[in-house]
């Protein structure tokens, strides 16, 4: 392989573009940092969901059947988000500690808890899609948001609620 020849024209272009690079670098760093903060929030929400579905995967069959299926989805979501966070050079997110004692809840109570958690997660993802700057992160988040929205359909139906309550589902905080 031969080294590129430094011509007068290349040198002038390099000199002319240097100030632009100096301006652009902090902006890019700020974008990455902002994205990392958003992904950290998303991962925290997804880890809580994963842990909650895991906790509900045993017990009443009415809940555990759904929880086992959705837990498998959450494992994939958290893996994708953890990988994205690592790529951004941000620290990892510890698993959640403060989980309600779900065994004390009735099957319906567990479903209500999971529904509320999914709605909160959907709201977090919805907001994130207005904040993220990286194209790939935007798309990954959208594909996860779609899955959470589908989880909501199943949980709403299990609770006897309208599965399609809104034309623009932005979740609920």
């Amino acid at each position: 392989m031969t080294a590129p020849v430094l011509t007068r024209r290349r040198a002038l272009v390099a000199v002319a573009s240097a100030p632009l690079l100096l301006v652009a670098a902090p902006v890019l760093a700020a974008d990455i940092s902002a994205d990392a903060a958003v992904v950290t929030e998303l991962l925290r929400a997804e880890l809580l969901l994963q842990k909650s579905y895991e906790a509900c995967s045993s017990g009443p069959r009415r809940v555990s059947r759904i929880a086992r299926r959705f837990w498998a989805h959450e494992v994939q979501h958290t893996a994708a988000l953890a990988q994205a966070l690592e790529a951004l050079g941000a620290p990892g997110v510890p698993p959640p500690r403060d989980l309600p004692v779900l065994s004390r809840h009735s099957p319906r109570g567990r479903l209500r808890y999971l529904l509320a958690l999914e709605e909160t997660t959907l709201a977090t993802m919805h907001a994130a899609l207005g904040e993220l700057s990286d194209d790939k992160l935007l798309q990954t988040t959208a594909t996860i948001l779609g899955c959470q929205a589908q989880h909501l359909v199943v949980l709403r139906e299990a609770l006897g609620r309208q599965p399609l309550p809104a034309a623009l589902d932005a979740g609920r905080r």
Partner: protein
Amino acid sequence: MVNRRTLLAAAAATGFAGCGAGKAPGSRTPAPPAATATPPAATATATATPAAGADAELLLPLIELKARAVAIYGGRPGLERLRAHERVHLARLLDAAPGRPFHYRVNTPPIELELEQLAAQLAVLPRLADPRLRTLIAGMYATDSEHLAVLRRGAGREAVPRAFVTGGT
């Protein structure tokens, strides 16, 4: 030519979508496979700030798909709620990109239609500069994913078969 008001009103007309391709909304006579519509800005009820030029262009494929969804669901009993949602989506998109001509066809089965919409939204999302438009599309993406789950279940299929909803399958 169909304007925004007549297009949305046409969604109330049932029967035409079930006839498949070759029918334009609001028309009972055979028409070419594609209908062209120019929604005038003057008739739009402004609920969203119109998008800048590049963003507005990106919304056109989504508008076409939403117009198709409104028409298709208009002809299918049991899908009234889905049609109502699609009408809201279409109205919001037309508010964001007024005065743009578009065309659409009425010949896609509902599950494929939702998949096509999701794929189109996913492709457009990272290209939109306006974060408000991205959150608008995010709301549609969530609702259309829900539509897909309901339609799949109605067809005796698994409602949530995958961890990532891409619209591809």
